[in-house]
């Protein structure tokens, strides 16, 4: 729309946007500020938007009540392994489905499409039983293997294939002239071009693993092995009531690092997601 909006309309739109932004911004703000408030002030009204006195006692108790540093490490390393693994598995498969002609391609790609239709919640009972029968319950293996190879990576493979299909064919012809094999073509030519798609897949995969909740509570039972989402819900008092100040401190520590990375790299984040295979 080329004409500039009249002033009144602009003010109205800004007003509406600001009003709508409240539920998006306020919870995070309140989470962080409340985590520094003494517990008596948390439910005070009217709420102070900035804590009047800084209290770090809730942060200390997070680490006293649970092996929180260990749990943090668990979540971080699982998410990192799953992200790298998914990138490898899905870019290889996506490339082959998009650019290589081989017998059985259609039938095998159908398997991928079927995988897209099956939410992982549907298979949680048999997965539990399968991992149980090989003694992998209460280990991190299910949280690594299933996302890297199962339904989530199938989605990633689909996205990568949609991306590789759009690359011009001359690139591979040039690679062939240079005598590059398939693997070298993939590694040196296709993969560098796929950076936006790889970025989007990496972000999605990381967030998916970082947020996983059903799987950890089904597969893990030892606090030292818990992941963050699971740990966050364990800060309860003797009556099972939540210890709000401690929960909010732990939640802040879980949310803030990712949020900071996002704010710094928001353009790549958002545009990467909007302009890759997700557009369909």
């Amino acid at each position, binding site marked *: 729309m080329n004409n500039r909006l009249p002033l009144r309309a*602009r003010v109205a739109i800004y007003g509406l946007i600001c009003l709508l932004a409240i539920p998006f911004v306020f*919870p995070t703000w309140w*989470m962080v500020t409340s985590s520094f408030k003494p517990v008596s002030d948390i439910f005070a009204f009217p709420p102070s938007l900035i804590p009047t006195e800084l209290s770090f006692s809730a942060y200390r108790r997070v680490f006293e009540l649970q092996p929180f540093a260990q749990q943090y490490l668990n979540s971080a390393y699982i998410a990192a392994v799953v992200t790298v693994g998914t990138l490898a*598995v899905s870019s290889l498969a996506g490339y082959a489905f998009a650019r290589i*002609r081989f017998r059985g391609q259609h039938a095998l790609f159908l398997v991928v499409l079927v995988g897209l239709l099956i939410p992982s919640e549907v298979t949680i*009972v048999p997965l539990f039983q399968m991992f149980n029968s090989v003694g992998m319950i209460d280990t991190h293996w299910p949280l690594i293997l299933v996302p890297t190879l199962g339904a989530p990576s199938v989605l990633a493979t689909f996205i990568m294939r949609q991306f590789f299909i759009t690359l011009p064919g001359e690139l591979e012809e040039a690679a062939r002239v240079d005598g590059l094999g398939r693997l070298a073509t993939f590694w040196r030519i296709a993969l560098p071009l796929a950076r936006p798609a790889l970025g989007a897949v990496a972000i999605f995969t990381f967030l998916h693993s970082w947020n996983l*909740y059903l799987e950890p509570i089904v597969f893990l039972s030892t606090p030292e092995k818990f992941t963050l989402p699971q740990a966050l819900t364990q800060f309860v008092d003797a009556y099972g009531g939540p210890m709000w100040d401690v929960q909010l401190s732990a*939640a802040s520590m879980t*949310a803030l690092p990712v949020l900071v990375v996002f704010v710094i790299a928001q353009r790549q984040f958002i545009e990467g997601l909007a302009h890759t295979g997700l557009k369909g």
Partner: protein
Amino acid sequence: MPVLTDNVAGRAEPRPAPGGTAASPRRGWWTSRRRDQLAGLLFVTPQLVGAALFVLLPLGLVVWYSLHEWNVLADTFDFVGTDNYRELVDDPKLPGVLRSTLFFSVGLVVFNLALALLLAVLLNQRLRGTVVFRTLFFSPVVVSLVAWTIVWGFLLQDNGGVNGVAGAVGLDGPNWLRGEWTALLSVIVVQVVKNVGLNMVLFLAALQGVPAELYEAARVEGASRWTQFRRITVPLISPTILLTSIITVVGALQVFAQIAVLTQGGPGTSTTVLVYYLYQQAFQFHQFGYGSTLSVLLFLIVLTLTVVQWRMRRKWVFHEQ
């Protein structure tokens, strides 16, 4: 030689040149076609083995389990045929669960898509600062799900922030998580605010692809902004509307953590959606057989909805391709 169509093989691959040119060396049996056959299979092997082991095999197993009476604690595993499916029909809790699932999913999808479209249209105006607001609206997507839910649980307490704000403007807010309808509404709002940024971004990209000349022409014809929106914007972004609605519907049926943290399915079964009920039966009541039957039901619902939506695309998605 397999007959391949372009949409799967990619439009790129030229056939290997016949004969021993430098571009495609033919070393007897080891032709570049054979090499491609091997490379293709090797490249897809990890994904296919994974999909077979962690998607297809469990899907088969869940159907098999659903034909068994299987209590993990009592260690019983007996073939009972379709008994579990009969139990499904007679389960007094199931109508409530399905009603909650329906209300939750429909509410979530409608609210999510409407808000996403509204935000995208607002941010697509030529105004300063829209990038900042885009970042703000998107930011909950990257906040840890359970952390986000815990904060909202805190805000929705009877004496929490939401009622504090309501009280400040003279309203007496309910105890949100304790009332049947308010609990359902709360879970929907928490989930929509968390994830609407994704759909907003997809809509924004689609809106930016609508040619400005169309609006220009419509204005010359004297069309109002609302008419422009209905007659130009909506048809042109309909492929994105279809895509986002499929993603959102399937996503709505998978919501678990928010409910487990905020309401544990209550009060009553007002927020017990199918996934949560499945979890309760299998992992709290140790009924793996009946839990599997519920899994099969969930799968059939997801499958049906996806197929129906995909079929509907011809009807209302403007200019396929």
